[in-house]
Protein backbone atom coordinates (compact mmCIF):
# COMPACT_ATOMS: atom_id res chain seq x y z
CA UNK A 1 0.00 0.00 0.00
CA UNK A 2 1.40 3.40 -0.92
CA UNK A 3 1.93 6.05 1.73
CA UNK A 4 -0.84 8.11 0.15
CA UNK A 5 -3.25 5.16 0.50
CA UNK A 6 -2.18 4.50 4.08
CA UNK A 7 -2.78 8.11 5.06
CA UNK A 8 -6.13 8.16 3.30
CA UNK A 9 -7.22 5.07 5.22
CA UNK A 10 -6.11 6.52 8.57
CA UNK A 11 -7.93 9.80 7.93
CA UNK A 12 -11.15 8.00 6.96
CA UNK A 13 -11.06 5.89 10.12
CA UNK A 14 -10.26 8.82 12.40
CA UNK A 15 -12.43 11.61 10.98
CA UNK A 16 -15.16 9.94 8.86
CA UNK A 17 -14.81 12.77 6.33
CA UNK A 18 -17.56 13.95 4.00
CA UNK A 19 -14.91 14.76 1.44
CA UNK A 20 -11.28 13.74 1.34
CA UNK A 21 -8.38 14.07 -1.06
CA UNK A 22 -4.80 13.04 -0.37
CA UNK A 23 -2.62 14.35 -3.15
CA UNK A 24 0.99 13.47 -3.84
CA UNK A 25 2.70 16.70 -4.86
CA UNK A 26 6.24 15.40 -4.61
CA UNK A 27 6.86 15.81 -8.33
CA UNK A 28 6.23 19.56 -7.95
CA UNK A 29 9.24 19.79 -5.66
CA UNK A 30 11.72 17.94 -7.87
CA UNK A 31 15.07 19.68 -7.86
CA UNK A 32 14.52 21.74 -4.73
CA UNK A 33 17.39 19.86 -3.15
CA UNK A 34 20.36 18.20 -4.79
CA UNK A 35 19.60 14.54 -5.46
CA UNK A 36 15.86 14.88 -4.93
CA UNK A 37 13.96 13.74 -8.03
CA UNK A 38 10.37 14.09 -6.80
CA UNK A 39 9.60 10.49 -7.65
CA UNK A 40 8.58 9.37 -4.17
CA UNK A 41 5.97 10.34 -1.60
CA UNK A 42 7.69 13.15 0.27
CA UNK A 43 5.30 16.07 -0.23
CA UNK A 44 1.63 15.38 0.38
CA UNK A 45 -1.45 17.59 0.57
CA UNK A 46 -4.50 16.61 2.61
CA UNK A 47 -7.86 18.18 1.83
CA UNK A 48 -10.57 17.11 4.22
CA UNK A 49 -14.09 18.11 5.20
CA UNK A 50 -15.29 16.55 8.44
CA UNK A 51 -17.76 17.39 11.18
CA UNK A 52 -15.00 16.42 13.60
CA UNK A 53 -13.49 19.87 12.94
CA UNK A 54 -16.61 21.84 13.86
CA UNK A 55 -15.77 24.25 16.65
CA UNK A 56 -12.04 23.52 16.51
CA UNK A 57 -9.46 26.27 15.93
CA UNK A 58 -7.21 26.15 12.89
CA UNK A 59 -4.23 25.11 14.98
CA UNK A 60 -6.26 22.40 16.74
CA UNK A 61 -7.41 20.94 13.41
CA UNK A 62 -3.86 20.76 12.13
CA UNK A 63 -2.65 19.28 15.39
CA UNK A 64 -5.32 16.54 15.23
CA UNK A 65 -4.12 15.56 11.76
CA UNK A 66 -0.44 15.93 12.59
CA UNK A 67 -0.84 13.75 15.68
CA UNK A 68 -2.62 11.05 13.67
CA UNK A 69 0.12 11.09 11.04
CA UNK A 70 3.05 11.40 13.44
CA UNK A 71 4.42 7.94 12.53
CA UNK A 72 4.52 8.90 8.85
CA UNK A 73 6.12 12.28 9.59
CA UNK A 74 8.72 10.65 11.83
CA UNK A 75 9.40 8.07 9.12
CA UNK A 76 10.42 10.70 6.59
CA UNK A 77 7.36 12.38 5.15
CA UNK A 78 9.00 15.73 4.46
CA UNK A 79 6.10 18.09 3.88
CA UNK A 80 2.43 17.85 4.78
CA UNK A 81 0.10 20.60 3.60
CA UNK A 82 -3.31 20.47 5.26
CA UNK A 83 -6.59 22.11 4.24
CA UNK A 84 -9.15 21.13 6.86
CA UNK A 85 -12.75 22.37 6.89
CA UNK A 86 -15.94 21.66 8.78
CA UNK A 87 -19.13 21.06 6.77
CA UNK A 88 -20.55 24.33 5.46
CA UNK A 89 -17.23 26.15 5.49
CA UNK A 90 -15.86 27.42 2.18
CA UNK A 91 -13.49 25.15 0.31
CA UNK A 92 -11.47 25.80 -2.83
CA UNK A 93 -11.42 22.32 -4.29
Amino acid at each position, binding site marked *: MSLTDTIEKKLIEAFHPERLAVINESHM*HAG*HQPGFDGGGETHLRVRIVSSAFTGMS*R*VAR*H*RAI*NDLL*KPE*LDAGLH*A*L*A*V*EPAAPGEPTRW
Partner: protein
Amino acid sequence: MSGIHEFIDNEVKTNDVVLFMKGTPQFPQCGFSGQVVQILDYIGVDYKGINVLADADLRQGIKDYSNWPTIPQLYVKGEFVGGCDIVREMFQAGELQSHLEAQGIAVKGAVA
Protein backbone atom coordinates in the same frame (compact mmCIF):
# COMPACT_ATOMS: atom_id res chain seq x y z
CA MET B 1 18.71 20.46 23.78
CA SER B 2 17.72 22.64 26.73
CA GLY B 3 20.03 25.29 25.33
CA ILE B 4 18.08 25.29 22.09
CA HIS B 5 14.80 25.52 23.97
CA GLU B 6 16.07 28.59 25.81
CA PHE B 7 17.35 30.14 22.59
CA ILE B 8 13.95 29.73 20.92
CA ASP B 9 12.07 30.89 24.00
CA ASN B 10 14.20 34.03 24.14
CA GLU B 11 13.76 34.78 20.43
CA VAL B 12 9.96 34.50 20.46
CA LYS B 13 9.63 36.50 23.67
CA THR B 14 11.97 39.35 22.79
CA ASN B 15 10.76 39.83 19.19
CA ASP B 16 7.14 40.70 18.39
CA VAL B 17 7.02 38.66 15.18
CA VAL B 18 9.38 35.77 14.48
CA LEU B 19 9.38 33.42 11.52
CA PHE B 20 11.34 30.18 11.77
CA MET B 21 11.97 29.24 8.16
CA LYS B 22 14.19 27.43 5.71
CA GLY B 23 16.53 30.01 4.26
CA THR B 24 16.28 33.73 4.91
CA PRO B 25 13.62 36.33 4.06
CA GLN B 26 16.00 37.55 1.35
CA PHE B 27 16.56 34.03 0.02
CA PRO B 28 13.95 31.47 1.10
CA GLN B 29 15.03 27.89 0.39
CA CYS B 30 11.58 26.29 0.57
CA GLY B 31 8.36 27.19 -1.19
CA PHE B 32 6.30 27.10 2.00
CA SER B 33 8.70 29.42 3.84
CA GLY B 34 8.74 31.66 0.78
CA GLN B 35 4.95 31.97 0.84
CA VAL B 36 4.93 33.21 4.43
CA VAL B 37 7.72 35.70 3.67
CA GLN B 38 5.66 37.09 0.78
CA ILE B 39 2.59 37.46 2.99
CA LEU B 40 4.48 39.19 5.81
CA ASP B 41 6.23 41.49 3.35
CA TYR B 42 2.92 42.28 1.66
CA ILE B 43 1.16 43.30 4.85
CA GLY B 44 4.23 45.29 5.84
CA VAL B 45 5.02 44.03 9.31
CA ASP B 46 8.51 44.03 10.86
CA TYR B 47 9.62 40.51 11.66
CA LYS B 48 12.72 38.48 12.40
CA GLY B 49 13.47 35.54 10.12
CA ILE B 50 15.48 32.70 11.63
CA ASN B 51 17.03 30.13 9.31
CA VAL B 52 16.62 26.65 10.76
CA LEU B 53 18.88 25.18 8.07
CA ALA B 54 21.80 26.91 9.76
CA ASP B 55 21.64 24.57 12.76
CA ALA B 56 20.47 20.94 12.94
CA ASP B 57 19.60 21.25 16.64
CA LEU B 58 17.47 24.29 15.91
CA ARG B 59 15.73 22.54 13.01
CA GLN B 60 14.59 19.75 15.34
CA GLY B 61 14.30 21.99 18.41
CA ILE B 62 11.68 24.27 16.89
CA LYS B 63 9.50 21.23 16.12
CA ASP B 64 9.76 20.09 19.73
CA TYR B 65 9.21 23.59 21.12
CA SER B 66 5.80 23.99 19.52
CA ASN B 67 4.94 20.31 19.09
CA TRP B 68 4.49 21.13 15.40
CA PRO B 69 6.13 18.84 12.85
CA THR B 70 6.81 21.21 9.98
CA ILE B 71 8.54 24.45 9.06
CA PRO B 72 7.82 27.41 8.60
CA GLN B 73 6.42 28.43 11.97
CA LEU B 74 5.18 31.93 12.79
CA TYR B 75 5.17 33.36 16.32
CA VAL B 76 3.52 36.61 17.43
CA LYS B 77 4.24 38.00 20.90
CA GLY B 78 5.65 34.67 22.01
CA GLU B 79 2.65 32.69 20.83
CA PHE B 80 2.66 30.10 18.05
CA VAL B 81 0.27 31.21 15.29
CA GLY B 82 0.66 28.48 12.70
CA GLY B 83 2.49 27.14 9.69
CA CYS B 84 2.18 28.05 6.02
CA ASP B 85 -1.40 26.83 5.51
CA ILE B 86 -2.76 28.59 8.60
CA VAL B 87 -0.91 31.85 7.90
CA ARG B 88 -2.23 31.88 4.33
CA GLU B 89 -5.81 31.14 5.42
CA MET B 90 -5.65 33.87 8.07
CA PHE B 91 -4.20 36.33 5.58
CA GLN B 92 -6.88 35.58 2.99
CA ALA B 93 -9.60 36.07 5.62
CA GLY B 94 -8.02 39.33 6.85
CA GLU B 95 -7.46 37.72 10.24
CA LEU B 96 -3.68 37.89 10.19
CA GLN B 97 -3.72 41.67 9.91
CA SER B 98 -6.37 42.03 12.62
CA HIS B 99 -4.50 39.58 14.87
CA LEU B 100 -1.32 41.65 14.58
CA GLU B 101 -3.12 44.93 15.14
CA ALA B 102 -4.96 43.52 18.15
CA GLN B 103 -1.52 42.76 19.61
CA GLY B 104 -0.45 46.35 19.04
CA ILE B 105 1.88 45.52 16.15
CA ALA B 106 2.08 48.02 13.31
CA VAL B 107 0.92 46.82 9.89
CA LYS B 108 2.26 49.30 7.36
CA GLY B 109 1.51 47.75 4.02
CA ALA B 110 -1.55 47.13 1.93
CA VAL B 111 -4.84 46.99 3.78
CA ALA B 112 -6.84 43.82 3.27
